[in-house]
């Protein structure tokens, strides 16, 4: 059967029929957008690190996701499990560290927390807010053995 997904999904899809049904039931193909790309980037980063650091298994992955990053946390978890299947990080636990959105008003220089990109400055009302933090998505560290 020809599965129209990336290698990790195909790997997962090669599993049991139940697993395939689970993939379908969870809406792979519809709702996770680019989180699967990002999960596959994570796998690549982990594999590169494994060659340098010579570890055989990953137990925990700490992933930092900013509030303003274009990533859905739950979608990321789902894709992480699918992407890591069959790899050295197959059983790894994903710890998501959420960081708050921060910005600075270009007009009045006030530093403010921001939850969305279209928020106005609470002091002067300007929409010119420079994002100063909370848009990152990076692997911070791994617990390996």
């Amino acid at each position, binding site marked *: 059967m020809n599965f*129209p*997904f*990336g290698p990790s999904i195909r790997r997962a899809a090669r599993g049991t029929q139940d697993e395939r049904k689970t993939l379908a039931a969870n809406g792979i193909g*519809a709702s996770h957008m680019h989180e*699967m790309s990002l999960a596959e980037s994570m796998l690549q*980063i982990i594999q590169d690190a494994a060659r340098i650091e010579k570890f055989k298994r990953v137990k925990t992955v700490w992933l930092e996701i900013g509030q303003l990053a*274009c990533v859905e946390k739950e979608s990321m978890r789902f894709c992480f499990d699918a992407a890591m299947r069959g790899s050295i990080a197959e059983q790894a636990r994903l710890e998501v560290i959420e960081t708050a959105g921060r910005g600075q008003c270009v007009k009045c220089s006030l530093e403010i927390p921001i939850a969305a990109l279209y928020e106005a400055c609470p002091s002067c009302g300007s929409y010119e807010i420079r994002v100063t933090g909370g848009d990152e998505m990076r692997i911070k560290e*791994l*617990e390996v*053995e």
Partner: protein
Amino acid sequence: MCATCGCGIGQTLIGGHALQRPRQHGGKMRFRAPEPDVQVPGAHVADVSTSRIVKLEQDLLAKNNGYADANRRYLSAHGIFALNLVSSPGSGKTTLLVKTIEALNGAQPLAVIEGDQQTENDAVRIRAAGAPAIQINTGKGCHLDAQMVGQAMQQLGLQDDSLLLIENVGNLVCPASFDLGEAHKVVILSVTEGEDKPLKYPDMFRAADLMLLNKCDLLPHLTFDADLAIEYSHRINPKLQVIRISATSGEGMQEWLEWIKGGCCNAVAAKSEASLG
């Protein structure tokens, strides 16, 4: 690859050829794409027990950004002005491209990279308009990435001092995150959509430098408030330039063509300056 909107790596076709992803242990690539310089910075052992911590601090987009930087270096070294056109499906991107190519009418060397999940239809339309075009089929994928574009650039064989138009997959979400090495993202919003699209999809409007408000010839028949749409887009991105345009009536086309010509001149001038030293 976005598998769940389902990008499949094995499915990506560039001009009918499979995308060559480098293999884990250095497999050969059929088309030499620019290799990014991506390292794992500062990886070090924090603990010597059986279980240890490896610090990475690696951005998930680092690999794509590495390829994008390589594309950008190539483009700027050859004086090529590259635009990444992004929008929802159905905003009129391809028609606008066809009209743009017809208007430039051989005076400006150009090439087009077309991104769609399936079919060669758009590349066929572009070629019929008189420009070389290559189609990237992303399979289930919802965006182009810098590596695909790098390979497509190699296959196209770009002319020095030319214009490269990249029509991304119709999608206002994912393409915002994936730098392709372009000079500018150009977001196309058509007046048959909602005025509040910039608020609903802020990442794309924040990432773009120019917005083309397309299908303006239809405004008399609609309740769309063009000023409000522009105001919303400026809330997200106060520096966003806006051109009201209609591929059908030709409104705004001159301004858009001037904008392109200005960019092309700057790209050629920057190349000459760099080569002088």
